[in-house]
């Protein structure tokens, strides 16, 4: 038994532990307070006041690529929103495609075909080791700006390639569109009925037919019939009119460079994560699956991958976060993402502290949202212990 009364306070292990932590926190707060106070004093000295009211002022500049209506008479706040949406757009598309390519390359990396494996390895090793900024600038000025000029645009099928951007035909809704939408809903209902009937049939006979296949076929049939009967869409082809290309869907070289750069770069990392995840699944699992008569695709799809996912998801999350944050390199290729737009706002309004604080907190929120979602997904696919 230890008599706590005999130990002086400054030698009491428990007290010192708590004291140390309290002290550390105190120092941290004092230090932060000092920094913030210093900044406020300096700002006051310059006659600059902090505040976010400038967000309601007219921005006065135009932005090249917008997802929501915006012009020079819009506010700084709206300019921020335009930048945020552009960032979200390129990040989301980037994440989807980087994941798809990453999985394919990661699986290819483990292929028993020597050539496939070698190519996948070269892809991973080469692209993972080039700085993203270099890659982006190369793709922008070496690929997309080198496409032919707009008047000599290159046509691959109906898609128009030029250094003003890639223009693709795009369906626009016609008068028949509302009716078509209703018809599609009907198709969905029919597909559900088909699925249910077949499922019941399977339950009864014990020989389940290709339930999904047939219901999908029913839905597709409805879609095709709907397209023919109502003609809900009209293809709009890009055409050169004066200096502009009108109609169709336009992807600017800036967007294409940033997006493809992010996808290529991140997919190389994801491929390696996927490879590691697959290799983490014990070999016995594969052998057992094969001896049960599953094909190699089935083995991968039903046995290996579900188990590999548990290893893959946490590092995958961090690569998703990286992709989102890396999208701020857009500034190098002139894409108006959040960071680029906030740079302009900073310069035009002169509100350095507020603009940077806002940009940082938006990136932080984006990242936290992504990791929140991925953590939820991670919990969902976790191995259920029985």
């Amino acid at each position, binding site marked *: 038994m230890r008599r706590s009364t005999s130990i002086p306070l*400054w030698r009491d292990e428990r007290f*010192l532990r708590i*004291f*140390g932590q309290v*002290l*550390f926190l*105190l*120092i941290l707060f*004092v*230090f932060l*307070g*000092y920094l913030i*106070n*210093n900044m406020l*004093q*300096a700002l*006051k*000295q*310059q*006659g*600059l006041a902090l505040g976010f009211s400038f967000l309601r002022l007219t921005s*006065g*500049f*135009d*932005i*090249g690529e917008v997802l929501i209506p915006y*012009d*020079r*008479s819009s506010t700084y706040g709206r300019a921020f929103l335009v930048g945020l949406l552009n960032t979200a757009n390129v990040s989301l598309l980037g994440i989807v495609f980087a994941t798809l390519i990453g999985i394919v390359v990661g699986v290819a990396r483990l292929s028993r075909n020597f050539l496939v494996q070698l190519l996948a390895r070269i892809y991973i090793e080469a692209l993972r080791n080039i700085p993203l900024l270099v890659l982006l600038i190369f793709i922008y*000025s070496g690929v997309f*700006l*080198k496409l032919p*000029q*707009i008047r000599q645009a290159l046509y691959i099928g109906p898609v128009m390639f030029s*250094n*003003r951007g890639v223009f693709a035909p795009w369906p626009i809704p016609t008068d028949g569109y509302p009716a078509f939408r209703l018809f599609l809903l009907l198709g969905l209902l029919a597909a559900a009925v088909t699925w249910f009937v077949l499922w019941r049939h399977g339950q009864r006979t014990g020989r389940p037919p290709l339930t999904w296949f047939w219901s999908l076929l029913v839905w597709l049939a409805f879609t095709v019939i709907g397209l023919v009967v109502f003609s809900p869409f009209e293809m709009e082809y890009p055409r050169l*009119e*004066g*200096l*502009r290309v009108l109609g169709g869907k336009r992807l600017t*070289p*800036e967007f294409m460079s940033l997006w493809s750069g992010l996808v290529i770069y991140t997919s190389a990392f994801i491929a390696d994560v996927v490879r590691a995840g697959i290799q983490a699944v014990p070999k016995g699992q594969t052998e057992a699956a094969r001896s049960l008569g599953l094909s190699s695709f089935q083995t991968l799809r039903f046995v290996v991958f579900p188990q590999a996912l548990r290893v893959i998801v946490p590092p995958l999350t961090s690569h998703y976060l990286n992709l989102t944050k890396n999208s701020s390199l857009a*500034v*190098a290729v*002139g894409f*108006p993402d959040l960071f*680029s737009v906030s*740079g*302009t706002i*900073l*310069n*035009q*309004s*002169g509100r*350095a502290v507020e603009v940077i604080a806002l940009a940082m907190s938006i990136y932080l929120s984006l990242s936290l949202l992504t990791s929140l979602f991925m953590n939820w997904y991670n919990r969902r696919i976790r191995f259920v212990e029985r």
Partner: protein
Amino acid sequence: MTRLVRIFGLLLVLSLVLAACAQQPTPTPQKVVETVVVTVEVPVTAAPSTPAPTPAPSGFGETLKAVQARGKLVCGVNGQLPGFSYIDPQGNWSGFDADFCRVLAAAIFGDATKVEFRPLTTQERFTALQTGEVDVLIRNTTWTLVRDTDLGLNFTVTTFYDGQGLMVRKDSGFTKLADLNGATICVQKGTTTELNLADTFSTAGLQYTPATFEDINQTYSAYAEGRCDAVTSDKSQLSSVAKGALPDPENHVILDATLSKEPLGPVVRHGDDQWLDIVRWAVFATFFAEEKGITSANVDQGKANATDPEIKRFLGLEGDLGPKLGLSNDWAYNIVKQVGNYAEIYDRNLGPNTPTYIPRGLNSLYTQGGLLYSPPFR
């Protein structure tokens, strides 16, 4: 035992920090300046060899004192604009703006070489000046009301009257603004240029798509590749860069249309009126010297047999104009002797014999139909 020592160490640090804080929250501006100075002195005593980071001196006379203590002027420049400020093939800073940095150094130190050039992007420039990273900003910065007030800055004198223009390919056949309806236009981001472009096109009811880039080279290389139909900037920059950065300068032309007034000149911080006066009168000195025909070649001769009392005052032979600014009495002599008058500076960097020739136009003396006019040296 070591733990105890550590804790005592922490306590010591804490008490020091608290003590430092205790004297801080006094609200009078006098005290504020004092605390700032205190924070600077710490690194000086710790490592006397390294220069202290300048804490944005802004009270009357503070800037000059800080510059003199440092022994050199820190001048914020563009660094990528041939003819205005760039590093020439010999590795020296050269250009019109760079020479005005030298004018200031000559006035303050009597030595035009005591300048440290700090290249800044459009985005960095105001923050760099506000925080005192540079003493003066001579970086083709347009004088506007908002910048003059909201950013806590003072524009001194216009050294170069510019206007915004549009450059297009000759074979495009564009001759006026209306031809550019629907065009894509390359522009450097964060500039007044970007705002004027938006204003002009919206006023004229024309459509356009901006393609904005972070730095000059990027902007012009995108234009050169045909990413844009036109590129817009100050006409001086267009003519300077067109002859420098584009692979085929002869195939491009600057449209006559002028989108805006762009008065460019040195910028200083709010709060130090003495410094404002020094910068302003150093520039006036170059105007005045041209007006009176004083050049770097004949200034010594002029000093020897000066009769005009105003020239005598100017060169420091009579009166005490220099000390009134906080400078030596031969400050203006040093400017003219070491850097030259306005015409010399202009011709050296933007004259007919340079690759970046820009006709003087508005940048002539008022006696020759220009806008340069120096108040009397009295």
